[in-house]
């Protein structure tokens, strides 16, 4: 990889003595790492948090209560929030890179919708590809056209963002990361403004991207049923950096829902055999 940081021999030896375990990690594919003091200076959200080892080709949903730090965690992984610690992605030392280098490998969709401006979605996606300079210029327009088609939003591609609804702007933000082929996709509630059909379109497109490029997708989401149905792994974020990570049917159960969300809820199978949660009451 072109942006790999080359350490001097001495540094390498020192590093290997210090972090034997971590170095053996370095040879592994996937995402893993550990953050310390994530959040605000006076009152960090997490003093210590371990990012579970996520294999390439997995779609992971990140769930947790409001304000627990899902967005901050995604920002920290994207490199937009200063944090101590180490993070590796497919042998790339992400934590040693600058934000721009890092974002060349990561497709991050922030929670905020794109602003209402006279800019068109086509121009937005084009500027993004031009700025990151990873795609040959003659391919850019074709690539954008394909993504708009895949998401079935070609009809709004040339309409100013100021004339689009919140949901449409959210689709544009998702389309923006799909024009690239990053090794890691981070999406902060990408379905929050979407109706049922578009939720499915987005999840479907993300699943396709994960399969096609063997990347990792981490999606923060509040809809647990969507998470249960479509994710390969669920990552549950609790207080003080306590996390649970595993297959949806293993992780999501009444006890977890009570502990994390403070609700009384059941996990039952629907008529087609998929697990679903049914909420009864707030505890």
């Amino acid at each position, binding site marked *: 990889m072109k942006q790999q940081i080359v350490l001097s021999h001495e540094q390498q030896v020192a590093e290997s003595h210090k972090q034997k375990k971590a170095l053996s990690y370095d040879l592994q594919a996937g995402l893993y790492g550990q953050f310390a003091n994530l959040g605000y200076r006076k009152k960090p959200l997490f003093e210590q948090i371990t990012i579970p080892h996520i294999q390439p080709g997995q779609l992971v949903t990140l769930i947790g209560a409001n304000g627990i730090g899902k967005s901050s965690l995604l920002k920290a992984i994207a490199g937009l929030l200063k944090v101590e610690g180490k993070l590796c992605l497919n042998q790339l030392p992400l934590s040693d890179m600058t934000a721009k280098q890092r974002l060349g490998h990561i497709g991050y969709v922030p929670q905020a919708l794109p602003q209402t401006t006279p*800019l068109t979605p086509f121009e937005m996606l084009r*500027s993004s590809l031009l700025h990151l300079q990873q*795609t040959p210029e003659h391919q850019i327009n074709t690539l954008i056209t394909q993504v708009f088609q895949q998401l079935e939003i070609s009809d709004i591609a040339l309409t100013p963002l100021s*004339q689009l609804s919140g949901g449409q702007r959210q689709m544009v933000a998702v389309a923006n990361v799909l024009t690239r082929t990053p090794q890691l996709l981070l999406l902060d509630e990408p379905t929050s403004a979407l109706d049922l059909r578009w939720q499915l379109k987005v999840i479907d497109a993300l699943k396709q991207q994960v399969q096609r490029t063997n990347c990792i997708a981490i999606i923060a989401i509040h809809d647990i049923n969507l998470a249960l149905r479509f994710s390969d792994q669920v990552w549950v974020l609790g207080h003080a950096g306590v996390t649970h990570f595993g297959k949806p049917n293993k992780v999501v159960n009444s006890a977890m829902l009570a502990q994390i969300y403070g609700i009384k809820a059941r996990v039952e199978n629907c008529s087609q055999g998929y697990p679903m949660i049914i909420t009864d009451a707030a505890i």
Partner: protein
Amino acid sequence: MSLPLTQTTPADDNQSLSLQQQYDQQLHRKWLLLAGLLALTLFILLFDLSSGPADMGLDTVLSVLLDKQEADLYEQVIVWEVRLPYSLMAIVVGACLGLAGAEMQTALNNPLASPFTLGISAAATLGAAIVVVFNLQLPGVSSHYLLPIMAFVFSLLATMIILFVIRYINANISTIVLFGISLFFALNAAVSFLQFLSDDNALQQIVFWTMGSLSRANWLTVIIVSVCLCICLPLALRNVAAMTLLRCGEQHAQANGVDVSKLRYGIMIRVSLLTAISICFVGEIGFIGLIAPHIARLLVGEDHTFFLPMSAISGALLMSLASVASKVLISGVVLPISIVTSIVGIPLFITLILSRQSRL
């Protein structure tokens, strides 16, 4: 890096062509608008050259410009030393202010921002007022140039304070704007205080300076402002992708790898240079830096590849129109330019707003 995302069927292919074609059509239309407005500006420039207190029509002016030898000395002097610097100064100052306004509105994410939002003009006025009131003299510097030099130095000082705030306090946009507005009022108070101290003659000079006047233009000042524009415009155009992304919101710009604070810092430096250099020679010229970007936005949208040049051209056009108006509104009198910029700009601006409203 790019694999085909979907298997395209022939039907899809048609559709994909049409979206790209539509985009290409939009591009084509924007280039045409850009060229059209540029042509219109040049046309107004000719009109501007042929108007003035000395009764010389377009044919006389053109004959002087095209063939210097045959025209008499009086006409040559009027055209080359008075009208041409005056009209060209209108064009370059308008372009500078239009470009600066567009960059400022993007940097501060605020359609009400202008090159003067952060107090640059007030600082320039303070610098000018100090020269006038205290009758400053510097050995070796002609008093004709001392005033613009002081105006320039003061606006750079104001900018440095703002840049310091941005850099070391790591301020967000609203802090920057509030700080700039406070600075603006503080500087205005200082100018008022000087006006209170000054005698009638000095007071009149200060007031006249704040009205702006192209009559102070000469070839040297035109060249200085043009050089500044020729440096700042390409520098701005190098950042068009990042600036366009910034219009989607700070978070989206960052998510796409834009270093927003660095970008904003660069913009501030360019804006203050453009503004300080243009207003130090012609005085305060309001309105252009605010309205030109809006006209550009209505015409070509916010892809900064077009938005920035279009703002510069709109600014130049507005100033050129104002320059014509300043000479023909009251025949035989050249009005201070700042008085007419709004008279010219507002009808144009309102027409555009209304035409867009009816299209929606």
